[in-house]
């Protein structure tokens, strides 16, 4: 049970990043490779605020969110919008570029050494269903569950969320309907950035603030999304937890060198058996 709890806690981080991917994916049909870097940035912001400046966690949440928002707007303007609607995978290169830039900036500002961040609930531990886990882990898991249901509800019930769905389905049709797809894309990038930027304060205690965090998370969160189904927030939740638990169990019983291999196996297995993912939708029309 201990292994499962720790798998769920790590999985929760994948869920959070996958939600970020999904917001971009649903609202502007873009895959933002730099998405996990916002979480990485958030961990460093919270390190500075909580550890260096000794301020409360709430401040870290807010400042991280604001920074994530600003960087998100900047990324959309420079790396995503110039290529939107061109139909090629140009954003593959430019969002990777942004990812590298963000990593480089953090390296310049904070250095390459990992920093420890105290968690919410001052690292106290609870026993639940026969396994021990920290309060911070519990918060992470709860956040992953809450946010995935929240974003799902928001995208299916709010006007803006539905506009986003429309824009990614058919950009031009949405434009004709009076949806400002450019602003929507900027908004999505900024919101996803703000969300992950502020979550850095919760994730940091688990992962430490380390500049390579994004590169590790990007692929795992992607696998979570592929397993759950692109564009599905419930899928992101299930997918993230599956990846986290598989990784933890295989790492525990077969050895850590097999953990990635097992995750890769899950990915290939799901893609071959159900290419649209567990909760993804299949588009029938081809011509």
């Amino acid at each position, binding site marked *: 049970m201990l292994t499962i709890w720790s798998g769920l806690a790590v999985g929760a981080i994948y869920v959070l990043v996958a939600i970020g991917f999904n917001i971009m994916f649903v609202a502007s049909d873009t895959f933002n490779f730099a998405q996990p870097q916002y979480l990485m940035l958030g961990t460093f912001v919270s390190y500075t605020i909580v550890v260096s400046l000794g301020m409360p966690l709430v401040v870290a949440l807010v400042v991280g969110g604001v920074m994530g928002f600003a960087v998100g707007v900047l990324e959309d303007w420079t790396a995503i919008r110039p290529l939107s609607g061109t139909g*090629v995978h140009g954003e593959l290169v430019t969002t990777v570029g942004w*990812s590298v*830039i963000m*990593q*480089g*900036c953090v390296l310049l500002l904070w250095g390459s050494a990992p920093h420890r961040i105290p968690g919410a609930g001052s690292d106290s531990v609870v026993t639940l269903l026969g396994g021990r886990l920290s309060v911070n882990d519990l918060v992470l898991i709860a956040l992953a569950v809450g946010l995935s249901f929240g974003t799902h509800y928001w995208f299916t019930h709010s006007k803006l969320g539905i506009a986003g769905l429309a824009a990614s389905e058919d950009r031009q049709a949405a434009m004709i309907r009076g949806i400002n797809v450019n602003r929507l894309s900027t908004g999505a990038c900024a919101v996803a950035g703000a969300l992950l930027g502020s979550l850095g304060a919760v994730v940091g205690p688990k992962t430490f603030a380390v500049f390579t965090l994004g590169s590790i998370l990007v692929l795992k969160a*992607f696998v979570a999304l592929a397993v759950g189904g*692109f564009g599905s927030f419930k899928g992101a939740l299930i997918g993230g937890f599956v990846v986290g638990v598989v990784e933890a169990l295989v790492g525990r019983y077969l050895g850590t060198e097999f953990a990635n291999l097992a995750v*890769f196996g899950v990915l290939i297995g799901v893609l071959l058996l159900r*290419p649209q993912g567990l909760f993804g939708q299949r588009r029938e029309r081809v011509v």
Partner: protein
Amino acid sequence: MIASGTSRSWAGVVRRLPRWPVALAAGVLALAAPWLGFGSDVLRQVVLVAILALVISGLNLSWGYAGELALGQVAMYAVGAYVGAVLTMHDIDLALALPASAAAAVVVGVISGAPGIRLGGWGLAMSSFFLVLLVPDAAEIFEPETGGLNGLSGIPQAKLFGTELGETGFYLLVIGCLVVWLAVMRNIVTSRQGGLLRVLRQSGVLAASLGIGVSSAKLKAYALGAIPAGVAGCLFALLDGFIAPDYFGLTLMIAIIAGSVLGGSESVYGCVVGAALLQLGPMQVTAFEKYALVAFGAFLVVGGVFFSGGITGLISRGLRLLSRRRAVAAAGDRRPAVPSEMDPIPGELLEVRALVKDFGGSRAVDDLSLIAPAGQVTGLIGANGSGKTTLLNIISGFYTPTSGIVAIGGSELAGSGPHQRARRGVARTFQTPLIPASSTVAEVVASARLRRHHCGLIATILRLPAYRRIRRADRAASVRALGVLGIAHLADEPASSLALGTRRLVEVARALAAEPAVLLLDEPASGLDEQEVADLAGVIRRLRDAGATVLLVEHNFALMCAVSDRIHVLESGRLIAKGTPEEVQHDPAVIESYLGQLADVAPETGPDALEVAVSGNRADSSPGAGND
């Protein structure tokens, strides 16, 4: 053969000049470098550039040309390196170790690409990216052979055919490998195999409708792209006699993507430019420290936004712009080219019996039966959403019907996929023309012959007589098909720059070149001007007279009446009327459902029907307009 003579400005001439002699000269010069007084540190940099260029070149083939985001290059590179190193340590000659490295890389390339068969774009990108993450794990799992995370050292000097290669010998080997591979790659991409890759990149639907097995074509692209990576890996292992898993990481993968983008992904020689830029620029800095990371990222963003075709792309775009002026002038005098005689087309009977197709809860096609005999034009009309395109997609194999039968020439076509249908003789055009980018008109038309007239990869690479024969036949067939439509003079123009009407004609020519048993035309007149519609009507009549089986889906009722022998009217997936144009025009159900007021001005059948409707009420070519 029709003379191309449209663009004869100097820039056009430069653009058309073969580039391989220049590249070959550069290659020979590089081979001669050890005797030109360059120091060994310079030669080492050249070797590093060449190795990186090989890896990038593989990515260019699978990504730039075939459009597949298969980004596992580093994993293939690593496997090539480890296989080469281990074999050399077991005292195995390079003559064997080098091909073995390439073969191992091909295996990894195909495995990493496998998800791409069911999954395009980012899905493939990430799953192949993920493979890179597995390199250190794999090294650890096979620690006795690979030395684990500490790496593998003490790889002995390379031996080729029993003789030990000195520094100069190794240099020659590396440059030689690059020159040979670039020659191979050049021969692939400039051939019909290259055309196949471009069709694949444009659209899997198009590829399937041309009879290309999409899965096997994709796997071929991944396998080809893996070869240079494997060779490069082997060479890299032998360069310093040491390899470690941390070298083969995400940073290297990003550098390779950057090199591909900067040099131009869709180019043969761009990989050398990209590799040189990276090797002499950011990669000099150890592990991308400090500002290098930021600069490198900015480099990617700026490069990705502004130079989508890379530096080689910029040069050829410049030349094309300069030669465009003449070309436009030439296309402007679109002389009323006299269409050449049409060869007989052996059409076959198309039968659809009791066809039903459900999408979820809604029934798109409901108990539909029709026959389209050879030598006739069978028309299909109906409002948007009445099931016309669904029917075409069932006939061409993109949808599986819920029940019912499609038969050609009396033989049933149950369960076969689109590429098998295409091989059986189903050819089609698309509502939005699917024309691969960066292909000439003649190449687009010839792409219909890829399957029926096969030419092996070896014959292509070595330019054997079989290849030359097929190439000549391709050219002749496409010029003939274009000639039939009166556009043979456009054979050497870039196809994607043509006007919509002309692109539709190119699609018809492509369908013709497939020697079709059944020809499906999906709204060929939409977006055409009056003259073009009239031209199209002439083409369709001549197709019919040549014996083709034509199934025409069209909203332009006047065109439909002018060319069809029998018309079928669909409403909500059901057939509500069929008969000659005359009968259908006066059918009360059709007037009610489809024609609306248009029936009041219902034109006479025959050639002038077209004139009336076209000059009278163009807006009515869309059925909704007729109803209000």
